[in-house]
């Protein structure tokens, strides 16, 4: 048998310490809160899974969760195709390529709360370019009064803010495809669409997976922009999960339910990412089932 050097554990120790202080201990605090009813620092009652049950039955939370899921799906449905289309139409080389890259990246450099502020002004019907233009065209546009308008404005804002990320990732993926593929496709007589369908899209699979996961996670945790733009309203039309959570934890100081809900929130993201990742890994790499001929 090989001799085992137990001192090797010391090498792992720094990482364990870092992770403990940055992730495990805070998470355990949350777990601690989620199973107790803390009335005052001296008086606390162990309540078991009581908070979890209460939170799961909460109508407001269910509403926020549904809104959140539909929002994230809408974000993916718009930003991914739009990002691919943008990347395909960006110039491949020369000074135009550099210029376009900088232009496209600008919105990524703006802080979240500034994005919210920009759109808050942009959408105002008295002084905002978008709002005033829509009003002039005869639309009764109001992101503060109309729930649908508010929801759409938040979506468009997110598309404006984050589609460039998808575009940049796809652009990098496209540039990594060797010329020989395009040459072979031209020799094989492939149409433009066939080149996209059989060369570009399959070669983008890796970066698209990253793009989908990033955009899904980020949009699922969206907080600052709608908070600045609409404050979650009108009503709670744009109250997404993280805002609901903040209201509970910081606004009402309901630490128990907030902690229970944090854990559920965390598990939902983990689960959905796991499903997405596995699905994308599998699509396009699976062998087709054996068919009759051949």
């Amino acid at each position, binding site marked *: 048998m090989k001799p085992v050097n137990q001192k090797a554990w010391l090498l792992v120790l720094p990482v364990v310490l870092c992770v403990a202080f940055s992730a495990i201990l805070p998470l355990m605090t949350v777990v601690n809160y989620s199973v107790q009813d803390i009335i005052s620092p001296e008086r606390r009652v162990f309540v078991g899974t009581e908070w979890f049950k209460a939170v799961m039955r909460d109508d407001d939370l269910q509403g926020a969760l549904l809104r959140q899921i539909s929002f994230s799906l809408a974000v993916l449905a718009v930003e991914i195709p739009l990002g691919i289309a943008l990347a395909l139409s960006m110039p491949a080389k020369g000074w135009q390529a550099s210029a376009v890259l900088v232009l496209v990246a600008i919105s990524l450099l703006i802080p979240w709360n500034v994005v919210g502020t920009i759109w808050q002004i942009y959408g105002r019907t008295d002084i905002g370019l978008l709002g005033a233009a829509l009003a002039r065209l005869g639309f009764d546009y109001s992101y503060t009064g109309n729930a649908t308008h508010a929801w759409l404005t938040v979506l468009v804002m997110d598309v404006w803010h984050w589609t460039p990320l998808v575009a940049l990732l796809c652009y990098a993926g496209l540039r990594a495809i060797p010329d*020989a593929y395009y040459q072979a496709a*031209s*020799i*094989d007589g492939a149409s433009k669409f*066939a080149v996209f369908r059989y060369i570009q899209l399959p*070669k983008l699979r890796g970066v698209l997976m990253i793009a989908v996961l990033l955009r899904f996670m980020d949009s699922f945790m969206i907080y600052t922009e709608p908070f600045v733009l609409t404050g979650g309203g009108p009503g709670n039309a744009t109250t997404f999960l993280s805002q609901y959570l903040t209201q509970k934890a910081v606004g009402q100081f309901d630490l128990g339910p907030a902690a229970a809900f944090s854990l559920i929130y965390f598990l939902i993201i983990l689960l959905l990412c796991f499903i997405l990742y596995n699905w994308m890994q599998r699509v396009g790499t699976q062998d087709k089932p054996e068919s009759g001929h051949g």
Partner: protein
Amino acid sequence: MARIELDLAHAYKPNPRRDEDYALLPLKMAFDDGGAYALLGPSGCGKTTLLNIVSGLVRPSQGRVLFDGVDVTGQTPQQRNIAQVFQFPVIYDTMTVAENLAFPLRNRGVPADRIAARVGRVAEMLELSGQLERRAAGLAADAKQKISLGRGLVREDVSAVLFDEPLTVIDPHLKWQLRRKLKQIHHDLKLTLIYVTHDQVEALTFAEQVVVMTRGRAVQIGSASDLFERPQHTFVGHFIGSPGMNFLRATVVDGEIEVAGRRVAAAGAALVALDAITLGVRPEYVTLADAGAPGAVPAVVTQAQDIGTYWLVTGRLGEANGAEGALVRARLAPNQAIPKAGDAAWFGIVGPHTCYYRDEQRIEGAVA
């Protein structure tokens, strides 16, 4: 199928002035229908450019390309009906092997039953029949390269199949198999094949005619034995063979050829008017000679290596004025006394296989 004629030059830069600005210097060349050709030369000699001009991926900056007498200079590879296999295998990842092979036909709107028949035939020829339903992305490099080739062969009316160093990523023991497969396909289908490589063994075993290229120029077109026995250009002598040809400075004095201060042969009519020339002799044809023998020069052996089936002996000639002369390499059969390093020896350098050059070009009728 087509006879391909080229009369062109190509520069990637606009407004080329000097020779160095050209990727391909003006050249005139024809590839016969059904021939197997190789373009051989070191990296950057213009062979891939020439291939891409034939296929239509690159448009020559001057001149034209004719297929069976028809000017196709402005046509795309698809219009020319060319097939090309690249250095790295190009396959469509999401498709099965069968779908990959069918792709060029599907794009051209061929009916499904004809496609199936054709794919079956090509797969059989390339020994891919057992893998038709497998996803092409999961196969080994040699199978992928066969698929690339198959996509070219699947079109019955293809004008020519072009190969751009197709065996670069293939394991050595499979290279040999694939090369044999190519020869067999050439034999069976009588297609025009043009094969780019920097490996002389690959070129000489594959092709009937080898085009040797250097610095944008096609310096000789010929069979393996032409290139070996009668290199028209010193580059060919140097590039083909292992080691390459020996080149020795020579002068013509009183109607005789003088090397390293010794008169080795009588100069032919073509040489009499010249004074400085170059004598070229392959190491295979250099012999050990007796001291003072005609056509031999004295040298000091600097190295003698046993290469297994032969000895490689290197000697340095002495010039008449006592200065150090050129090196001569000889491939000697092991059944004779091999001189050791430091020995004095005489090398026979003149024989029926000795060539003479001026300005890097071979001179015909050099010996009386």
